[in-house]
């Protein structure tokens, strides 16, 4: 079962995501903000995908991606999918520079999200 890390400060969002992903057979680990997300990643080196929000306390999503990108202790850097209300192109550019492969606007549509996940995972395997 592929492991997906979801990082969002809203418990509701995490719950909903978790439900959606687990239903589709994915294993889910969580982080409530950027820092926690980073730690979770370090603890779960077999993470295959990161789904994260931008606006979070302590460390936002973009900063977290930057950190992960620069972190040499993490060998395998999984692809990041931003799940956010933000749609700023500048932001998107920044994200792309540190590993963000896709950008999904909140609220997400379940099918679209799952499709995207599958696509990215399969892409990665190659």
């Amino acid at each position, binding site marked *: 079962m592929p492991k997906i890390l979801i990082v969002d400060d809203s418990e509701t969002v995490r719950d909903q995501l978790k439900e959606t992903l687990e239903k589709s057979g994915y294993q889910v680990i969580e982080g409530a903000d950027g820092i926690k997300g980073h730690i979770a990643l370090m603890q779960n080196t077999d993470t295959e995908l990161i789904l994260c929000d931008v606006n979070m306390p302590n460390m936002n999503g973009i900063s977290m991606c930057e950190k992960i990108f620069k972190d040499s202790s993490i060998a395998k850097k999984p692809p990041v999918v931003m799940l956010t209300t933000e749609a700023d192109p500048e932001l998107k550019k920044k994200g792309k520079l540190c590993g963000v492969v*896709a950008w999904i606007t909140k609220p997400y*549509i379940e099918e679209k999200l799952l499709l995207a996940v599958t696509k990215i995972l399969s892409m990665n395997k190659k």
Partner: protein
Amino acid sequence: MDDVFLMVKDTSVSRFKTHMKIDEIQVSIPANCDANVIRSFHTVIILISGDDIKMTFKSHFDSELAGYLCAKALKKESVSWDKAIDFMKEYSNVVAGKIKKFFMDQEVIVGLSLPIVTRGFDEIFFEPPETGNVLIDNWILSIESNHLYCTCIAEILNKNRIQSIKYPLEKQATDESDGEVSFL
């Protein structure tokens, strides 16, 4: 300004449907619909603020309603109070998010605050607006006997700018940008 309020109302409705995963809701107008009074036990407040306009979106509910809506959406028997509150905060968030998008599309720059939950009672600490630039709108979103009270308070700083905002019919109830996946 009517267009703006309409837009807000619509947003609250559409987001309600997606967030709560409910299809049919009723919209009604409460008594003293342009006053800022205590509507319910809890209130979630979120601010959408910029140079041209300062807007507050509030949703009022009691613990029972929050629990009901959250459990329904998550398909659970019952949920903890914290989860239910968080759920309602998230609702405010998504509503506010869409409102922001709307404004941004209109080139009115605004920023979002964090949603905070507080007691309905705290309305007491808000002084009634003196200037004529503040407009208040109230409505109720109901599913049968469950009522969610919504308030929108808008302080117009740049009349011209705001008055020029139009909320055409085409734009109404469009959520096509929802869930849009763009690969970078």
